């Protein structure tokens, strides 16, 4: 099925820590990053979240960045993860000139906008803040991240809710397969904001305890924040640069559930089609899948229908599966890439990360992996990312075989 696409670099920042090494360590220890909210000014402290344990000023100091980047949390998180990805893939500024940068976000600069919104719109006076807000859309945050890295051939923002980063990865892979670029830096960044914390609260799908995906008594999401980027590369380019190959991006698909703006269809039609089409592209059968990193948000609706979709494909026995959102929180638009990096770490280090907090089965034979479990023979992983709008993506990472 056309050209092969490899992963040659990865970077990550989340509630689990900064960078691949810290993330791996936290995963192996089974340590959850969920805790009390501190970074945004909200009355809703009853909802635990997966925060990155650094203030904007700390991040700005470490990254050595100034205005306007120092005030934009999504951008700061994005730069952390993207820089690590470029370093791990040994990408020089010259190589970026012919590469694509595609980032998923929905929040973008909203963290800054919401701090100034009231003053600016109440007074209707043009100030430095109001002028800045005009440009503070989610595309702008991507441009700022890209600018901090170098000059790219193309830059764009994918905004498809919680599957945004997964779709950024898909677009990057398509661009490589179509021969438009040889290298694509792809992923997503999302900061916690009052804006979406309140929004998810109005939907009544936030859990006041640590979330419990696939638990019978689950009662919703813990929001999280972070960023992660992958460097995708064509076979020709990876080989000529003699760069280490972390994994093959062997299959992927985006489908639409076409059912409701936010709810998923009862039998998980979109999720079912996404996993099937991704396996078809990877030329894998259901039996080849060793682990599924589920979307598993912890809402009653998502987990039930995602499980239904999995059971339609694996009719005898489900593969090992877990949702790592109980560790990172639901990092919304960044979750597709954050969980992709977690999958890459699992694939390279031969283990399955656990679904922390899980206690009670929904039914027989549908239990996730609860604790981090060694699996040296792990070869193929499906990573699911579903977004409002019925936007369902499945991505398959496979162990690199020359």
């Amino acid at each position, binding site marked *: 099925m056309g050209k092969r696409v490899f992963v040659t670099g990865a970077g990550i920042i989340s509630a689990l820590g900064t960078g691949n090494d810290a993330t791996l360590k936290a995963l192996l220890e089974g340590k959850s990053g969920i805790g009390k909210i501190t970074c945004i000014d909200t009355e809703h402290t009853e909802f635990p979240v997966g925060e990155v344990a650094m203030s904007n000023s700390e991040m700005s100091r470490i990254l050595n960045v100034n205005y306007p980047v120092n005030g934009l949390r999504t951008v700061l998180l994005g730069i952390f993860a993207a820089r690590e990805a470029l370093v791990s893939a040994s990408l020089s500024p010259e190589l970026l000139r012919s590469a694509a940068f595609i980032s998923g976000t929905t929040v973008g600069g909203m963290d800054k906008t919401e701090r100034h919104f009231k003053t600016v719109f109440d007074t209707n006076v043009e100030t430095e803040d109001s002028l800045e807000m005009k440009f503070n859309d989610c*595309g702008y945050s991507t441009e700022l991240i890209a600018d901090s890295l170098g000059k790219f051939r193309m830059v764009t923002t994918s905004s498809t809710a919680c599957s945004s980063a997964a779709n950024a990865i898909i677009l990057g892979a*398509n661009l490589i397969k179509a021969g438009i670029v040889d290298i694509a830096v792809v992923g997503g960044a999302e900061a916690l904001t009052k804006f979406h914390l309140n929004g998810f609260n109005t939907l009544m799908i936030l859990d006041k305890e640590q979330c419990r995906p696939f638990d019978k008594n689950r009662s919703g999401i813990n929001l999280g924040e972070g960023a992660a980027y992958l460097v995708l590369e064509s076979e020709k380019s990876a080989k000529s640069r003699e760069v280490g190959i972390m994994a093959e991006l062997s299959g992927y698909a985006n*489908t639409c559930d076409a059912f409701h703006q936010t709810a998923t269809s009862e039998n998980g039609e979109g999720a079912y089609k996404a996993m099937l089409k991704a396996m078809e592209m990877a030329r894998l059968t259901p039996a080849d899948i060793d682990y599924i990193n589920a979307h598993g948000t912890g809402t009653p609706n998502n987990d039930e229908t995602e499980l239904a979709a999995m059971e339609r494909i694996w009719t005898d026995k489900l593969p090992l599966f877990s949702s790592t959102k109980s560790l990172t929180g639901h990092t919304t638009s960044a979750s597709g890439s954050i969980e992709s990096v977690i999958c890459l770490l699992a694939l390279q280090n031969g283990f399955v990360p656990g679904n922390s907090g899980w206690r009670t089965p929904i039914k027989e034979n549908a239990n996730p992996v609860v604790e981090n479990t060694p699996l040296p023979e792990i070869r193929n992983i499906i990573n699911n990312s579903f977004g409002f709008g019925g936007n369902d993506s499945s991505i398959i990472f496979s162990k690199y075989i020359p």
Partner: protein
Amino acid sequence: MKTLAHVRITPTDTSVNGATVSSASLAGLYREFAGDYPKFFKMDSLCKLGFMAAELCLKNLSADEKENTAVILFNRNGSLVTDRNYQKTIESDNYFPSPALFVYTLANIVTGEIAIRHKIYGETSFYVLDSRDETLMDEIVSDTLLTSSPRYILTGFVEYENEQNYIADIKLVTK
């Protein structure tokens, strides 16, 4: 890449394949060309705009052909108008955030609304661009036609600012 249909909607003019078909507002267009989908009135303006453009653009596709269609839309300001309206509902003086508004603070819901209406199960994407960059848009669309399975793509630029300023410039394309 071949264009099968082209719809352009602005506040004063709606055209199909270059010929003006109406000068009505979005609600007027709905009454003229749809009329059987009361959920239309629950949508935000960006969705109403995308929905009507899709209504006119997909008129001649069969259900089977729609199954084989992807939706890839672009704009510059995301869902900014609804973001503002929702932000007003979470400001503390009158704290009653609206769930229905929050749902539409996602720009890609417009692709979902179109998919729900036309039973499109294929790819749906939404990209926010720095400017209306036709070359980049074409590249993303032709790339999807080349590398993914859909036979048809409903694609274009859809942006809503206010009642006097909005545009949907949508095409149905095939290989």
